[in-house]
């Protein structure tokens, strides 16, 4: 069945957990799909090394798209690339029905888990997660025109400007702020 074959194939390409399961016991993995003998044989005959290499290239592409919309966050948190890779390997992207670029779409998908990881790690700047949210939401609203909002403990718009100028504030003052993103415009006020 075409749909079942493609579901099994795409999962192998996009999901490291599926590939581990397939490598451990291909028959058991494929039993989860309604496949005939020829379909099972075709999937088993895909060269494993090439599939793995392709899978890694997909994750690298997801990162490449995201990196374009979060350049400031990447300066503040160079670990972002590896954090995204670790997350994306285990979390296939879900299709979105919108007009966003691949980078903004990936940003929205990855925002919550990446913010949680940045916040949980003491070595990261205290505003790194908020800056990531700032860049992702700004990019998304700039593209689709939908309003989005963000609450931060910091004066994020100012922080973003300083990072853009090459400064990396180490321990900025707390200044709770509410931000609103609407098309190209970012407005904010004290929270």
């Amino acid at each position, binding site marked *: 069945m*075409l*749909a079942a*074959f*493609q*579901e099994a*194939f*795409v*999962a192998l*390409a*996009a*999901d490291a957990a599926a590939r581990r399961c397939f490598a451990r016991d291909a028959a058991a993995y494929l039993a989860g799909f309604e496949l005939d003998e*020829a379909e099972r*044989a*075709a*999937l088993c*005959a*895909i*060269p494993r090394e*090439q*599939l793995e*290499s*392709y899978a890694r*290239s*997909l994750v690298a*592409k*997801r990162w490449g*798209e995201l990196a374009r919309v979060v350049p400031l966050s990447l300066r503040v948190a160079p670990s972002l690339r590896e954090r995204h890779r670790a997350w994306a390997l285990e979390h*296939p*992207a*879900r*299709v*979105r*029905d919108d*007009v966003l*670029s*691949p980078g903004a779409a*990936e940003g929205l998908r990855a925002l919550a888990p990446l913010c949680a990881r940045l916040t949980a790690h003491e070595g990261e700047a205290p505003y790194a997660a908020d800056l990531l949210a700032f860049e992702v939401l700004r990019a998304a609203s700039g*593209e*689709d*025109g939908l309003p989005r909002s963000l609450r931060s403990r910091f004066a994020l718009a100012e922080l973003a400007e300083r990072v853009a100028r090459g400064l990396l504030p180490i321990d900025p003052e707390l200044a709770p702020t509410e931000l609103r993103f609407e098309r190209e415009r970012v407005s904010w006020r004290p929270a």
Partner: protein
Amino acid sequence: MSFLGVGLSYRRAHREALLAGAGPRVLELLPDHFFAEPEALEALAERYTLVFHDVGLSLATAGEPSELRARRARIAALVARTRPVLFSDHLALTRSPGGIDLGHLAPAWLTPALLEHLSRRVCALQDALGVPVALENIAAPFVIPGGMPEAEFLARLVERTGCGLLLDLTNLLLSARNEGADARRRLQEYPLHAVRQVHLAGGFRDRRGVWVDSHSEPVEDESYALLADLRLGATGLVAIVIERDDKLPELAQLMLDVERARRVWEGTA
């Protein structure tokens, strides 16, 4: 439709130079770059012959999930607005039927069942857009064993649907190298009479020795040689487009490649 000329894939960095009239005869646009801002297309459409090229319709995906129908409708709206002479997408899938998004082209398993499905999708697409549709061969990272050869599959698809081919000569070259095949011999296996558009680009060989279609390098001499070989068979060719994404040079530099491709196609190189 007669041959319209050699063109470039549109990149935003070149917009000002293109609007100043420094561009080629044909521009290839990715419609999703204009979904949120369709009015930005108007000025380009006034100055250039347009062809649309998509990477997201995932024509090989079984069924037609609602997101893909919505995407087709967005593209149809842009087509109605600017009347490109051709629309193309790939013989590939970029998502699963259930909604996993690969974000990139994946090879399809080229079986009779897929041919049946793809024929329906292509016919529906032609009806929805009202402009000629062409399918492109991808630079496959691997081939799923047990299916038809790509050239045979495309020939059957052309016969069933009347669609055209966008023959990416660089994809053909790099896939042939990766599979240890002779690209010039393989070229002759495709239904060349159905070729409506050609892509030329440049790739590189990665650390594992695999050729990658990166669109980051100048077009190789071997790709131009394939273009020269194509002259005898591709009697319905409408446009040749040079693709460049990374390490993007100035427009004037790319125009030298455009000129070279034109001379090769006209047999004056």
